[in-house]
């Protein structure tokens, strides 16, 4: 019996002590017409060897590909120590640190994580993480509406240059509470500052901006921040935390810094894994801490005055406040935060900066190579580690042809940005070698030569 340790003697003795003859009697309180003999349509159980073999076969079918897709999830090299340590049973199979004395490992680790995230983002406090970048953005919008008491507005300004699925997820979550996201248009790959200026007289709880934007370009974050504060709005910064080793941190944007930063933690040591589990990070200025959703760990002392760690500010949370909580969230993505904290410790500030810079250099190399091909052009000159290239024909068939050659050529922008024409978002992280980049160039040339311009 997989994972069940009972012997026949155990079962007999246990039933006798309970005072029943069979285990079936234990289910007598379930009305008889609701009881079933077993679930239908479940395949017979497999041994560990059999299920491993089946998984191997399935995985092999997914093929061996070289990916140049980013669009919010990035392939980076993950040091062996990261997941070797993170999957130690003491981290992997513990739960939320309700009993602080028996969870100092997890609690101290989260405190270290919070310290690293505040330093990366240049803000005062961090929570213990949220589900992913998109849901963290939604929570940041809810938080801004709660926190901006002067405004009282239930509208948030966002931008077409923000990840389109982040905006979609935020809409799913905000619309039920009557909170509205208003999209600013995109000009030249970034938020249209003229359109932003035209909104100056209107009341919004916050302005949100992604740096770098979804299209890989760099926003004028200082101007956007100052303008927002002048209009009585909070600023929500959505940033790739790895790139913050090289980019100006939200806490230093403009005169007084962004108020809330959030984003996708996946680049910090989390495998791509078809989209999750990842983690959303969130940091903010000290004055907003009581509006923050999610777990927060604080340092304190024990009865012998020794330093120790515990969950704190729990009066914000659902298990105390119930229907008046800041959020219904009770999870943090603890295991992913464990990996990210180990990753950041191994890389340090210098290592993260080198990776960020190499991503930029590799993407430049790729873009230079591709835009030298007939029928390919670069759309925006300024970008960090992703760039938009335009083809002289529809993108989808080209991507299919590349994929048959083992190359995933990028993210097709035609669904979310049809106005950009045949646009493709490409990304070459530090994990792509010079040979792989060269191979992409050669394949693109070959594919374009063999297919017709539509």
């Amino acid at each position: 019996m997989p994972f069940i340790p009972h012997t026949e003697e155990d079962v007999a003795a246990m039933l006798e002590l309970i005072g029943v003859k069979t285990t079936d009697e234990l289910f007598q309180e379930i009305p008889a017409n609701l009881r079933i003999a077993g679930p239908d349509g479940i395949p017979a159980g497999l041994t560990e060897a059999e299920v491993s073999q089946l998984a191997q076969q399935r995985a092999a079918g997914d093929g061996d590909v070289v990916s140049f897709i980013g669009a919010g999830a990035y392939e980076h090299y993950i040091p062996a120590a990261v997941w070797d340590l993170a999957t130690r049973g003491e981290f992997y199979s513990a739960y939320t640190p309700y009993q602080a004395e028996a969870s100092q490992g997890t609690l101290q680790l989260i405190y270290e994580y919070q310290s690293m995230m505040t330093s990366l983002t240049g803000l005062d406090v961090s929570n213990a993480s949220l589900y992913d970048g998109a849901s963290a953005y939604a929570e940041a919008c809810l938080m801004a509406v709660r926190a901006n008491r002067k405004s009282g507005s239930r509208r948030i300004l966002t931008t077409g240059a923000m990840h389109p699925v982040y905006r979609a997820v935020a809409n799913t979550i905000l619309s039920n509470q009557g909170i509205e996201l208003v999209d600013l248009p995109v000009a030249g790959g970034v938020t249209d500052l003229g359109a932003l200026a035209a909104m100056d007289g209107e009341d919004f709880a916050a302005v949100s901006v992604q740096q770098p934007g979804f299209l890989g370009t760099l926003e004028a974050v200082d101007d956007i921040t100052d303008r927002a504060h002048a209009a009585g709005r909070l600023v929500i910064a959505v940033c790739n935390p790895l790139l913050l080793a090289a980019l100006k941190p939200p806490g230093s944007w403009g005169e007084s810094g962004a108020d809330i930063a959030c984003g996708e933690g996946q680049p910090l040591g989390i495998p791509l894994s078809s989209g999750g589990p990842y983690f959303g990070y969130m940091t903010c200025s000290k004055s907003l801490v009581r509006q923050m959703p999610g777990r927060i760990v604080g340092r304190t002392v024990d009865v012998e005055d020794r330093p120790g760690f515990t969950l704190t500010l729990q009066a914000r949370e659902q298990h105390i406040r119930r229907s008046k909580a800041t959020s219904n969230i009770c999870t943090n993505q603890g295991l992913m935060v464990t990996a990210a904290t180990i990753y950041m410790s191994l890389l340090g500030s210098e290592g993260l900066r080198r990776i960020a810079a190499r991503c930029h250099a590799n993407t430049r190399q790729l873009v230079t190579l591709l835009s030298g091909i007939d029928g390919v052009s670069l759309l925006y000159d300024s970008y960090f580690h992703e760039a938009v290239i335009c083809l002289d024909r529809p993108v989808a068939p080209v991507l299919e042809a590349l994929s048959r050659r083992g190359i995933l050529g990028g993210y097709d922008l035609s669904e979310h940005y049809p106005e950009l024409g045949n646009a493709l978002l490409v990304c070459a992280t530090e994990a792509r070698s010079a040979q792989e980049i060269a191979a992409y160039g050669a394949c693109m040339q070959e594919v374009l030569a063999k297919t017709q311009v539509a």
Partner: protein
Amino acid sequence: MKEPLIFEYSRPGRRAPSHAPGAMASLDDLPAEVLRADPPVLPEVSELQVVRHFTRLSQQNFSIDTHFYPLGSCTMKYNPRVCNRVAMMPAFANRHPYGPEEHGQGFLHCMFELQEMLKAVTGMAEVSLTPMAGAQGEFAGVAMIRAYHLANGDTQRRQIIVPDAAHGTNPATATMCGCEVVEIPTRADGDVDLEALRSVLGPQTAGIMLTNPSTVGVFERNIETIAALVHEAGGLLYYDGANLNAILGRALPGDMGFDVIHINLHKTFSTPHGGGGPGSGVVGVSQRLQPYAPVPVVGRKNDQYVWLTEKERPQTIGRLSAFMGNAGILLRAWVYMRMLGAEGMLRVSEYATLNANYLMARLMQAGFQAAYPERRASHEFIISLKDIVRQTGVNTMDFAKALLDRGFHAPTTYFPTLVPECLLIEPTETETRQELDAFVDAMIEIRDLALSDPQEVKRAPLSTPVRRLDDVRAARQLDLAWSENR
């Protein structure tokens, strides 16, 4: 021994250089105003220091792999190692979420099978795998209920009924969905108060959120009546799957009349709790809610597995995650379910219930007071320590801390709030009878000590890396991040 912060090992210039590119590439082509002036303060440590530090931190945790962890309502069962190994196989771990379907047929095949197996154990018409935790599954469920009413022009249905024993996420979720919460009392025998339910039902009712077996650890015997009453009033029923382990393979929420259900894969299907997450709160829906299910869902077209998105499901409540939920967690659940098969699933509920009833019977024999002594335990049960507290002054939290000193993680304390001084105890099916006996011995020992020397119990814990922490100071003198100038 207390482990220093990783920052305290840091020395300027120390590095683990094999993990980053050897040289710093230039960023000179970028405008200076977007670049960072001062580097972030992260530790500068060697790889060995990192390995040692985090290994030592791990050793300061209680976990399923090291301790009996009978945390009620959390289903802390063994997490098979092979589930992790499969999810971390390079072909699965390296797959980009926007990779084309033809390079994801193996992964999608597993997800399709997982959806089918979850339909089979819940009796629902469709399953969507995207919610990333129980609370997000709850959100999806209530949002679907609202979408259904709005689509029927029922704009006034904004009330969600929740029993007073419910988990805090239920009312918090209803609020997040823009609904009003109405609490109804639980009767002394643990069932929902039907009269109270009748009195709150009406044209304003959107639905009811129930856990079954309930949060007090007993099966709701009137579930069919409840379903009929709520449906007659035009409301829908939401099943919180927190306690599915108790009935796995034996009864289907769909048969009980539920319209929507979330399942915590990190409970019933043994995916890791990871120190607080990631969870996975997949949702199942009845036929009438199918159009509203969150996307993407995995479908099958011409022998290929495909994503079904807003195009195929124009009435969906939308997306809840940037990509596809906690895909790697879903893979772990797939491995576990394929290993169990139908028989294995029946055994889960059989032995989880056997262990809970045995542990309850032994504790009652030893003189502890069960909150619902006339009822069968489900996979968990409640002990109330109120008499011991009155006699000795030793309270439930003291008991919990004293258990830590005896090598047991404490059960859930003070929840549900309607039972005074309570311990919610869930042993799970993967514990041996000998482990349960040892737990009973520890409980007896602590009670005896409480009677003879209550102050000694109040000193606990003594064997953990720290003793009781000053929570008031933690909240009043906020210290949430280390900084170098302290």
